[in-house]
């Protein structure tokens, strides 16, 4: 009897310790940009949307990866074939094949490294189509064709204003849910730079004037796995509209003419990508 009483008392204490989330200040996270700074959609934006999904192809690559240029070519070709419906991201994690030593460009990012670790990517080149599963370049075409043409669950439109003088970039990402989405739904916003000239290891040696395409420069807001739309709801119902505003200065090291934004919506429960979009800033 005494033992049972002690047991119950212990249970009570454990219950007490496990069941209280005492929060510390600050309790709120102010938005990066006020709602009043929203860059509104124009009629043309919505008319141009054809209701079909835009697929995300992540190409995990490296400047010292000899087979990676061929994979990059496959990705670019797939993008041309599926014009407007395939977004390609060249992600450089922090392994040996991405090490810039010896005059190679440094495209490594912490975000890319975190993604690589999460998906257990070892060996390059490897890819993810809508973050379904890790596959080699030979399977990219099949994987992309399997989802291309599907109805878009979200209408994702990026609006931006870029000030050449100050290099300040304002973004308004309009996400309208066209179908119910259940789970931890998030928006990831990425900085990208295209057509960067630099060294690359190829099957025949080192190419000193290689054109690096679709280089991922890191998440725009530093949130690796995206920011939640509405964490108080288990399901975001069709019809709901979200506007995510951001503002930052584009690094001097990046070529503004080739700089663009990629945004994609994920279900963080299984990491799957629901919809993607890209937009050049100039």
């Amino acid at each position, binding site marked *: *009897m005494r033992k*049972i*009483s002690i047991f*119950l008392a212990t*249970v*009570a204490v454990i*219950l*007490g310790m*496990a*069941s*209280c*989330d*005492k*929060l510390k*200040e*600050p*309790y*709120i*996270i*102010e*938005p990066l*940009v*006020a*709602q009043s700074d929203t860059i509104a959609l124009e009629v043309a934006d919505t008319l141009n949307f054809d209701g079909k999904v835009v697929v995300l192809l992540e190409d995990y690559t490296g400047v010292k990866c000899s087979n990676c240029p061929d994979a990059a070519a496959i990705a670019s070709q797939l993008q041309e074939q599926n014009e407007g419906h395939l977004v390609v991201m060249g992600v450089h994690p922090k392994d040996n094949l991405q090490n810039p030593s010896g005059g190679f460009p440094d495209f490594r990012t912490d975000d890319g490294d975190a993604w690589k670790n999460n998906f257990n990517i070892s060996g390059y080149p490897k890819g993810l189509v809508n973050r379904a599963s890790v596959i080699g370049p030979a399977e990219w075409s099949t994987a992309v064709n399997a989802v291309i043409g599907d109805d878009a669950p979200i209408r994702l439109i990026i609006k931006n204003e870029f000030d050449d003088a100050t290099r300040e970039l304002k973004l308004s990402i309009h996400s309208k849910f066209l179908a119910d989405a259940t789970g931890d739904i998030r928006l990831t916003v990425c900085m990208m730079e295209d057509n960067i000239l630099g060294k690359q290891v190829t099957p025949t040696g080192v190419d000193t004037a290689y054109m690096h395409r679709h280089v991922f420069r890191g998440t725009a807001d530093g949130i690796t796995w995206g920011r*939640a*739309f*509405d*964490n*108080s*709801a*288990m399901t975001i119902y069709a019809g709901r509209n979200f*506007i*995510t*505003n951001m503002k930052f200065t584009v690094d001097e090291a990046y070529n503004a003419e080739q700089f663009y934004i990629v945004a994609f919506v994920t279900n963080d429960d299984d990491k799957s990508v629901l919809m993607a979009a890209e937009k050049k800033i100039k």
Partner: protein
Amino acid sequence: MKRLLLFAVLSLCATMMYGQGILEKSKVTGSFEIDGSYYWSDSGIGITEENINGENFGAYGFGKLQYNLGNFTAGMRFEAYQTTPMSGFDTRVKGMGIANYFATYDNGTIGVTVGDIYDQFGNGLIFRTYEEWTLGYDNSLRGIRAVFRPYNGVTVKGLYGKQRFYWASYTEERGLVRGIDGEWDLNQSISSLNSARFRATLGASFVSKYEQGKTMTDADLVTYNLPENVGAYAGRFNIGYGRFALSAEYARKINDPSAFNNWIYRDGQEVLASLSYSQKGLGAVLQVKRVDNMSFKSMRTATQNDLDLGFIPPINYTHTHSLPSMFSYSTQPNGEMGIQFQVNYTIPKKTALGGKYGTKLAFNYSQVNDIKRDSIVVNGVNTLNEMGTKGYDSPFFAIGDRMFYRDLNFEIEKKVSNKFSFTLMYINLYYDMETIEGHPGAEPVKANIAFGEVIYKINRKNSIRLEVQHLWDNIGKDHEIEVGHEDNYNKRGNWMAFLLEYTIAPKWFVSVADKYNYGNPIAEKRDHYFTGSFGYIKDQTRIAISGGRQSEGLVCVGGVCRAVPASSGVSLTVTTSF
């Protein structure tokens, strides 16, 4: 799932009943009630066909059955609410089905209940589930409860489940609730105290709710960090010595930002204390209460009385007479401080003042004020009750300037002879309509009410009762009405009321009554609310029919109120139990 459980419960019952002698030991009890109303338009009190919206007929009813065999009990309640806008119920209550079912096994040492649970920890400050038919209120917990009584006088209870939310499915998003309560009755446990004059009970409880969602983003894109687990704990004691009794309970809740408290992160606290004295012919009670941010619900976006886990006991006199009950107090979970003092004294019989049969006197004073709320500094700016902050500071013993309610009443009840008795009551009332009824801009009610009742027993079976009331409001016929706020004056101004009831014991009664708002500042609202009732009572069955006009009012039970609109119609109520 629920059909499976019901089937299992019923099968278990049936199987058990086939056993030898089972039927003799089984006990089945139950009760039924049905209320049906037919409403019609009444231009005199401003009820148009548009108000009724084609829904003239409203009905609601329930049937409860309980089966008991030794240590096993099972029960269910079927209910149907086919209400109309005239009924004054929340529209979400509409529906029908098995609203409640449970099965319990309790052998005195261990008890387990599965199904829909009604229970209370202490005074219910952090956990009370109950149902109140007249309010359309039911916040039962569907889950499991275990009760353990390891020693005499020691009870430990644990429970886990999800609350009922009208007819919404239990798979829908709502908080999960877990709680534990312990109580120790020293007089039962300690043999030397078994028959002592000194009595003591100690208790403690802990309740936590889990609701998914670590953040929430509002329309202005501000993100709020939210606690998924919100815990509340309480401690209590009851001490008695001879004719004195003292009891107190203290409850505290950690940060619980919600729609009800404007998303502030301040801890909640509540104290309830009572001191009483009782002897033959004399009783006195003094109660105090302080509530600070203690709305505790199992869903953070819930409002009104939805999904309440905690219960705030009212410490006010509950008026049952028709005029004072129009201004009943409803508790304010965001903050209130109250006091109540009551004395009951019976002047002994066969004395000069007491008369042949004695005279009962009762005095009651209660007052409720807001708590004091001081602004706090957030990011260098003085703020008060702003979302996403701690809200305010509130010194524990400081009383807020705003008075919500005050009631001073005095009652005399006297039996003059075998045939004749009377009751007289005077009430002075202050009622902050703006806060209590949520009517912005409404002026407070400052009223004096007189009540008189006379009962005359014609013979052993027949008696007649007459009730006369008058209310003097501080707002008179010539009062200037604020344009756009005419609805705030629906029950303002002077009233007079009477009720005449004739009873043929034990079965029949008939009554007529009228309430007349002759002093309403808006001439069109100076209406008579005339009603007639007729009823039949036999054993446990009661049938009553009433018809006429009903004024706008409140139905309040335990400080929780439901607003009832003015209506015209006829209704039938049948209740029975077995």
